[in-house]
């Protein structure tokens, strides 16, 4: 029998620092909710909006797989490994923080906010060698189907991380549906609606709602509106 956890968008933690507004699906920084700590290896799902020209100054990370998915605007990244890059909608960025990495992230535009998802997944080994990668995805490949954007394997489509995790994105027309089959037995999937409305496993979801599914082998997602966008994050539950 499947286990289901529903996190409506308006129940998320909120941090408003003026230049940064962040919604936290799970406990993060000053937001602490013992009922909302993680979904398996998925530990952080932050929905960030950064004001024009502002950003996160240099700060460290370690032992975490950090994935950034821009939704709007341009985000400039610099890190202690010498990487300087701009990521924008359609890109995905991954950092394996491992033994330690420093980076900064700024909104490159002076006249437009940037919106992005910051996702942290526990690594399957501690103290890995830090690494950085980013790719541009072909957004046409997710029209009315699920496009893989992340996996544990270098050879597979999308970026890779140190964890048995698979992420997919899809952009659907109204009434179009897709099936998803769990890649690794025992894994769960956290579904996050980016835009529009979906019905997932019989549950109706609005924008920024999250739905965790575990003890399940497959399920169906159906768009209830046009131009509906969804993110699926399959992660180990133990």
């Amino acid at each position, binding site marked *: 029998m499947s286990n289901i956890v529903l996190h409506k968008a308006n129940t998320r933690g909120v941090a408003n620092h003026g230049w940064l507004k962040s919604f936290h699906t799970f406990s993060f920084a000053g937001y602490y909710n013992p009922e909302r700590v993680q979904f398996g290896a998925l530990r952080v799902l932050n929905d960030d909006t950064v004001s024009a020209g502002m950003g996160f100054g240099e700060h460290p990370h370690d*032992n975490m797989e950090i994935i950034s998915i821009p939704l709007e605007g341009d985000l400039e990244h610099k890190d202690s490994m010498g990487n300087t890059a701009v990521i924008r909608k359609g890109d995905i960025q991954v950092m394996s923080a491992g033994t330690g990495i420093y980076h900064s992230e700024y909104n490159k535009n002076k006249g437009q906010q940037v919106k992005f998802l910051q996702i942290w997944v526990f690594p399957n080994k501690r103290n890995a060698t830090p690494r950085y990668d980013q790719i541009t995805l072909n957004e046409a490949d997710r029209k009315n189907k699920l496009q893989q954007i992340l996996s544990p394997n270098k050879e597979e489509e999308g970026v890779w991380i140190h964890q048995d995790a698979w992420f997919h994105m899809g952009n659907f027309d109204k009434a179009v549906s897709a099936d998803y089959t769990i890649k690794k037995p025992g894994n769960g999937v956290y579904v996050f609606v980016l835009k529009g409305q979906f019905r997932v496993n019989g549950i109706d979801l609005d924008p920024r709602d999250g739905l965790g599914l575990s003890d399940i082998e497959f399920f169906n997602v159906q768009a209830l509106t046009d131009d509906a966008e969804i993110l699926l994050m399959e992660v180990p539950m133990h």
Partner: protein
Amino acid sequence: MGNPTQVLIVGKNEAIVLLLQRLINKFKGLHPVIAFSAEAAVDVIQCQRIGLVILSSGLSEDCEKNIKENALAKNQGIKVITHFGGGSGLLKCEISETFGKEIEWAEAV
């Protein structure tokens, strides 16, 4: 008001250990002590009344095990946690979960 809980932070990435030290200083009722090696950590555990050990990055599994064993041998009540993320994002939650209650910032972070 009682004495603050001594929090030992152990890790090999000096910058991250120092950041965690600054963060622990900002929590009510916690006082940081730092060590950059398992050997130094064990010395601190033997000499000071530590209530919580935070294992930061760069330590081998054997080092982490050695620290845990020494901490528990000194006092079964010492909590030992493994820190992930390297900064302020998860620290409050990790400590709150360990103590079974939400810890509070003494000042804004």
